[in-house]
């Protein structure tokens, strides 16, 4: 099964934060919540690298493992989502997540920090796609919904049939990056991108939506 991932080419990221701004603007996320942010390591030293980080939509998600109310669920596309109706804002997922993905609308202990918010891979929440309930309200500093649902509008790039066929045929694309291959010799490939990046020439896209497909020859 294909899994959706965002990949950032850390060799090319210049920490411009345009991805952060595009994400916040698109989903109308309040001040203080950053579903996506740029992390820089070795700042000012040789070998400095920046990488854009959000929820990695883990296969065996630690946030889901520690959630006391089981508000997490995984879609058929491998996107890890959560229900804000069920979330009690306990903050366990915040401590469990190795990527700092869970965000909260307010600062405080346990329930006082509000419902957790994180990257939804532009797929919204359990409510009906594109409904007002899914979009949510921003009153009183809270953020009850998930912002706009780009996947529901067909704007997020789903895995295209022809791309999957190419993987199955073992064809290498021009953008194929051998250094990104995982230990399981899986194939990473570029199938599109989101938001602002969509309007850039292909070769200038840094942040890519990728499908993670296990290469046929390594199956079993």
């Amino acid at each position, binding site marked *: 099964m294909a899994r959706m991932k965002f990949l950032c080419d850390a060799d090319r990221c*210049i*920490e*411009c*934060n345009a991805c*952060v*701004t595009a994400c*916040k*603007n698109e989903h109308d996320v309040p*001040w*203080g919540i950053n579903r996506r942010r740029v992390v820089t390591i070795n*700042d*000012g*030293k040789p070998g400095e690298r920046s990488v854009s980080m959000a929820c990695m939509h883990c296969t065996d998600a630690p946030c889901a493992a520690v959630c006391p109310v089981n508000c997490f669920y995984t879609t058929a596309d491998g996107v890890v989502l959560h229900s804000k109706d069920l979330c009690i804002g306990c903050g366990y997922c915040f401590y469990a997540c190795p990527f700092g993905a869970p965000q909260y609308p307010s600062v405080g202990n346990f329930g006082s920090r509000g419902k957790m918010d994180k990257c939804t891979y532009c797929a919204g929440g359990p409510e009906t796609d594109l409904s007002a309930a899914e979009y949510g309200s921003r009153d009183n500093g809270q953020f009850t919904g998930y912002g706009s649902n780009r996947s529901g509008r067909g704007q997020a790039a789903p895995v295209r049939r022809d791309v999957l066929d190419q993987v199955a045929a073992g064809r290498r694309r021009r953008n194929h990056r051998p250094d990104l291959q995982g230990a399981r010799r899986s194939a990473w490939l570029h199938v599109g991108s989101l938001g602002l990046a969509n309007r850039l020439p292909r070769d200038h896209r840094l942040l890519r939506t990728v499908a993670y497909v296990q290469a046929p020859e390594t199956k079993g």
Partner: protein
Amino acid sequence: MKHGCMHYGNGKARANAFGLPDAIPVHREPIYTPRPELVAKYPTLPNARQFRMPNVGFDVQKAAVEKGIAKEFPLILTSGRLVEYEGGGEETRSNKWLAELQQDMFIEINPADAAERGITDGAWVWVYGAADTKPRARVKALVTERVGKGVTWCPFHFGGWYQGEDLRAKYPKGADPVVLGESVNTLTTYGFDPVTGMQEPKATLCQVRAA
């Protein structure tokens, strides 16, 4: 061409430029220089009348050397851009998406210089400018190896504070940007381009102390 230069390319900087004070560029120490011993050999241009205005850079440089400015203000202060903001920043600091990414005016300072002054990353510091008016600015410290020892850097996109005082109340109602901060040009010093009259807001000297 023998030296790998072309008169319309990389050789331009070495070609005779008509109408400029230095027909071929020569080294001149900055008016506020961290190397005052070099001023005797590489002084700035003599005082001159430019357009309607006097340019007294030579006198200012001489006075700075005599007063030992470089000892009192040992750090080089440079200013530059942030990717989030534009110009003086009034417009971009009024955009909440951008303002959230850079919420404070700061000064980048090398870990060695910061350690000498007892400054930690994210702490408030006072930056003292080298001008006679004794300007100072209250900003946050960004302790980083992006700048070398003896060099500091500030973004020039901030405004709305003056020498530690928040002037938000003076903005017309609803016109105040989301974030305010000290303007780096509170600290920058005298100096004008001999041809265009452009001021020198990019490099000067300063001293930093923990606030």
